[in-house]
């Protein structure tokens, strides 16, 4: 298993200067959408309640009036029928009598006399609801709504108490149902319209309400993007004005702090580099005149020279890392020809076998040449220090990624230490035992930072050929999108 560090897919606070404020909770709806939705739901509820109430009331009103009218006519007709009927009347006499009764459009009548029925052209006794017939058998008047041949009808039954006869009026309610159906469609349409209006209104209101928040967002983005002097204008709304005040106060403190840090880093950098320049130049003069010195002085000069070299590297690496920490590191990308680049980087360390993939004479990568060179030479340096020197450099090209692996023939890195060796000032157990170690302890940390800045990653693993040794792999995206 590889002890992987500096992966490109983990959030890197160094290479991504704008922090990600996304809410991890599963609440994908934004504030604006939620406000619009609330308005829409509110509009829907109100319009549904209103439409429902309208429908129910209208229905009751229409049917009640129709029912009472029908009942009145039925009662009067039953009375007249009762008056005209004689005890010896038969079913044959009925049509003549029935013709004299009041007729109303949409009302049909059926009459029972003994066991006989006077049907209508459309209805006969079979169509009448059984419950009502039973009720009339008890000589009680009644009415019932019933579905006859698919249409809603009201059936009014009145027993003619003086005879063994019943009078039935069947009222067609289809036109009422039609009216109610139309009304239902209109109300449904109106509800949808009202809901849409409410949603649009909600969107408008939320946009107006959130406009100041959008300004806050733009200002925050501007600050994150480096325009530290961005401020919000005073707001007319007192609540928002307090927000603007706090925001501006935060921005001012942030600006002050960043500028102070930058000034400090610049001062430190200058204060450290200046004496080192003097030291290096002076030691250079002594080195040029080395043979004039006594043996003891020469030994002292060697110590001075070596430690000055190491101290210089430490300072330069530290300044570089602090530049990364401050987010000030920027890539200077150009087309780098991998073969030429690696040959140039390994020049002066002696021959190291370089394994390129087939047909890769012109393999190019967009990279910051200086940083990539430092990355490779830090890996070579590390191999030199802890692995007895690099045994080979292997380049692999798998489409989206380019991998450069530096292998050594040392003891390898135990799995438990593979992440830790990339930490600042940490040295593996093998390294810790060594005397005269001239590393700065920052090389591998810089390797990670350099790889991260290229959106790549670094890890260490075993050598694939099974021999003892470590294999440091840097993986870089073969194609970075930034422009030259």
């Amino acid at each position, binding site marked *: 298993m590889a002890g992987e560090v500096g992966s490109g897919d983990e959030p890197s606070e160094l290479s991504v200067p704008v922090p990600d404020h996304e809410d991890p909770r599963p609440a994908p709806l934004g504030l604006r959408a939620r406000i619009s939705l609330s308005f829409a739901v509110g509009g829907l509820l109100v319009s549904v309640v209103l439409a429902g109430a309208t429908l129910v009331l209208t229905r009751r009103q229409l049917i009640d009036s129709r029912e009472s009218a029908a009942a009145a006519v039925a009662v009067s007709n039953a009375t007249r029928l009762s008056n005209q009927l004689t005890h010896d009347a038969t079913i044959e006499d009925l049509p003549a009598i029935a013709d004299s009764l009041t007729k109303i459009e949409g009302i049909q009548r059926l009459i029972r006399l003994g066991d006989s029925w006077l049907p209508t052209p459309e209805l006969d006794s079979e169509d009448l609801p059984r419950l009502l017939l039973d009720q009339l058998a008890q000589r009680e008047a009644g009415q019932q709504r019933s579905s006859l041949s698919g249409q809603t009808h009201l059936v009014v039954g009145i027993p003619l108490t003086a005879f063994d006869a019943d009078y039935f009026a069947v009222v067609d309610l289809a036109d009422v149902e039609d009216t109610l159906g139309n009304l239902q469609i209109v109300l449904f349409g109106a509800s949808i319209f009202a809901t849409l209006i409410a949603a649009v209104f909600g969107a408008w209101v939320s946009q107006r309400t959130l406009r100041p928040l959008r300004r806050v967002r733009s200002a925050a983005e501007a600050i994150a993007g480096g325009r530290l002097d961005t401020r919000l204008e005073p707001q007319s709304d007192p609540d928002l004005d307090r927000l603007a005040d706090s925001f501006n106060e935060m921005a001012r403190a942030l600006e002050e702090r960043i500028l102070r840090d930058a000034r400090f880093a610049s001062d430190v950098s200058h204060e450290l580099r200046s004496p080192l*320049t003097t*030291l290096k130049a002076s030691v250079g003069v002594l080195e*040029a005149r080395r043979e004039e010195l006594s043996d003891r002085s020469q030994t002292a000069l060697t110590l001075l020279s070596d430690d000055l070299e190491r101290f210089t590297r430490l300072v330069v690496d530290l300044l570089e890392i602090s*530049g990364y920490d401050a987010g000030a590191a920027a890539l200077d990308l150009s*087309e780098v020809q991998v073969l030429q680049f690696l040959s140039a980087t390994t020049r002066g360390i002696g021959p190291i076998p370089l394994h390129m993939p087939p047909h890769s004479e012109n393999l190019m990568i967009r990279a910051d040449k200086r940083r990539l060179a430092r990355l490779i030479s830090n890996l070579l340096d590390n191999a030199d220090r802890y692995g007895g020197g690099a045994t080979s450099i292997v380049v692999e090209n798998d489409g989206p990624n380019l991998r450069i692996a530096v292998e050594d023939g040392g003891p390898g890195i135990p799995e438990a230490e593979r992440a830790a060796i990339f930490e600042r000032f940490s040295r593996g157990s093998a390294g810790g035992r060594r005397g005269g170690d001239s590393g700065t302890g920052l090389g591998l940390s810089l390797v990670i930072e350099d790889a991260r800045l290229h959106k790549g990653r670094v890890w260490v693993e075993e050598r694939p050929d099974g021999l003892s040794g470590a294999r440091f792999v840097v993986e870089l995206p073969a194609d970075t999108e930034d422009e030259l």
Partner: protein
Amino acid sequence: MSKNILIVEDDERIRTAVRLVLEEEGYAVVETESGEAALEVFAPSPSDVVLIDIMLPGIDGFEVCRRIRRLSEVPIIMVTARDDSHDIVAGLEAGADDYLSKPFDPKVLSARIRALLRRSRPSETAHAHLVIDQLELLADEGTVRVAGKQVHLTHTEFRLLVELASDPNKVFSREDLLEAVWDYGYLGDGRLVDVHVRRLRTKIEPDPANPRYVITVRGMGYKLQT
């Protein structure tokens, strides 16, 4: 006669140590501690190379560089105390030929000065006299004319143009040019080339934004177009 080097550096210790290094190499060194003093010294007796620290009291290193450029095409090395890309590019745009970051290796300083003083022309200049359109290059005389009028190029700008002119229409990579003009290896700083090409264009191109002669070939480098 030994070459004359002017050091502009406000830190007395660095100034002294660098003077010792350069005297060791056989150069005659003049030290000044400010830009104003440097200009007073330079105007009457120009040096062969000028070494300018960017952070100076009074007028800063960039301004000293610009003012010296108005007087002379002398090779200038900027010394920065920061590895800041802005500083480096600004220094080169102010007219510096090369830069060094503190703390620099004294051997590197000597090598840089030697490279800048190299008087020899790039080998085998195929075109001692080259005319493209309005541009006229007389490599042996060291002069360049545009539309018949002589333009003043710095030593490095001239060498860059001569290198490109050694094979017109051939694309030179930034690394090729770094090696030929600055004596840097493959790992040299490509910004040196980019800024010098920009400076060259402002001097020889009729419209530097839409170059006629020195053309950028994306991802490849630069060429001199006939």
